[in-house]
């Protein structure tokens, strides 16, 4: 008897669902709006003078829990400010073992590494998922950047200032890179 009543109840539920509009958001065509703090992939930034922001200090490589960041430190004279400073001669972030924990962003002293709002494409080889330095700088130009950088994340942890809120950004619209890739 209980089965009969429950059965009728679930039949009522499914019948209601069948006449309601479905929840499905058709993925390749429509992209679900992600929260402000959504972050998946990485980019390296240039600073306000147009120079590479990364000084090659390797703080991100040391804090990374799964050790996916490799930095080669180099020292040379900046082409823009004519001052001698540190540079990353080579920089690799291997997405194949990344935890997406954002610790590298948090410790960066120059706000050089940030995260993106769009994921990397699924690859056909492991090497397709390795973010080399040219790819990271390419990501800065071509893909929407996430909210966080080191300054904002550290400010969030300041007890006096209180938690910083991610300001609502304009571009919750579908990211062009992911939409193009899915086609």
């Amino acid at each position: 008897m209980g089965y009969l009543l429950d059965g009728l109840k679930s039949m009522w539920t499914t019948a209601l669902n069948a006449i309601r509009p479905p929840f499905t958001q058709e993925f390749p065509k429509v992209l679900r709006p992600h929260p402000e703090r959504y972050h998946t992939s990485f980019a390296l930034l240039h600073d306000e003078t147009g120079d590479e922001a990364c000084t090659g200090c390797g703080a991100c490589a040391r804090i990374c829990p799964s050790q996916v960041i490799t930095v080669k430190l180099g020292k040379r004279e900046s082409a823009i400010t004519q001052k001698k400073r540190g540079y990353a001669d080579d920089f690799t972030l291997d997405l194949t073992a990344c935890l997406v924990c954002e610790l590298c962003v948090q410790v960066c002293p120059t706000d050089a590494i940030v995260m993106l709002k769009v994921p990397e494409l699924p690859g056909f080889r492991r090497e397709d998922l390795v973010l080399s330095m040219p790819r990271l700088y390419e990501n800065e130009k071509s893909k929407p950047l996430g909210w966080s950088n080191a300054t904002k994340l550290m400010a969030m942890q300041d007890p006096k200032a209180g938690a910083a809120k991610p300001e609502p950004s304009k571009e919750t619209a579908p990211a062009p890179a992911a939409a193009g890739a899915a086609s």
Partner: protein
Amino acid sequence: MAVNEDALAYHHPLYDLMLNVPGLAVGLAPVDRLLTWGLKNSLWVFPMATSCCGIEYMAASASRVDIDRMGTIPRASPRQADVMLVAGTITVKMAPRVKRLWDQMPEPKWCIAMGSCAISGDFYRNLYSVVPGIDTFLPVDVYVPGCPPNPEAVMHGLLRLQEKVEAARAGHPVNAEPPPELFGAISPSLPRLTDQNRPPELSEEQVQASLTVVPEGDPGEVPVDLTPPSIPGALPDGVSTELAPLLKDRFGVAEIPADAPPLVPAERHVELAATLKALGYRQLVFVAASHHPAKKDGEAEAFEVAYALRTVGAGSKVASWRVRVPATESVPTLTPTFAGADWQEREQFDLVGVRFSGHPDLRRVMLPENWEGHPLRRDYPADHAAAPWR
């Protein structure tokens, strides 16, 4: 070079006929296109979901993303599936099962590695028990990055697989060019399936030779003095104060360290356990072994095994002690006194390699039977090359 040779190995008889009869291939090109269209639009998934990525796969099948839109349904039997979706960490013990299920799938078949653990082992990749990426034993077609990837990424991976299926049939496989040498890329501690220098698989004899466990003799009756000494209870944190006077009076232990369990001679620790059991310490809490390699100052290689007992009920007291033996000798088992010591000692044998003399069934309990070595020893190589799943 990285062409998936396995996926091209099987040909349907109809397909072979098309290729071998001259002229037929040209005439039947539209048919081939139609067949490819069918193949790529009906990818039935065998979800090999072992951990959190499996939840995201389920979300991908559910209402929001709904991979059924592209004709993907889950099949419980590998015989009817086209795609194996490996979602989650694959341990060394799981890997042979995954391989077997993969072998049971009919050609043509594909494999998707979903999430960091399946792709590379993530930050468990140097752990003794985790496979550093499933491409060390399966031919992976699509790698979906993320930890875990979101449901849309699962569908994206399937869409990429469709691209690959179509490209492979058209004669230009997508990953034909050799992988570039990349600075800083993680290379798995084991050769991948696509690597040229991959060693041949282990023979059955090699596997059997690694199983060299022989249980030793029976310890016989242990003489036990059951007169309960009149000792007060325990410290506020539950550590027993009864143990120290007991050890001093009856077991001749002079040194009772303040910050570690006292060392008890190995030949008398069974008697100690029985005495404590008579005093009301009826539960064996843990057996934990550690390995101490030989030092430069002449200290020999040794094992230390720590035991802890507790009383049952309210106001529980804990008593613990250590036993230290040279690496060549064995520790008398506690199994006759505490039945619960059986599996715990087996575990310590399995992971550290301590022998327990008189243990009734000293086999491996956690690692596969054919495992070589004991992974929690200090001298165990982290990237052990003789992993048995290959």
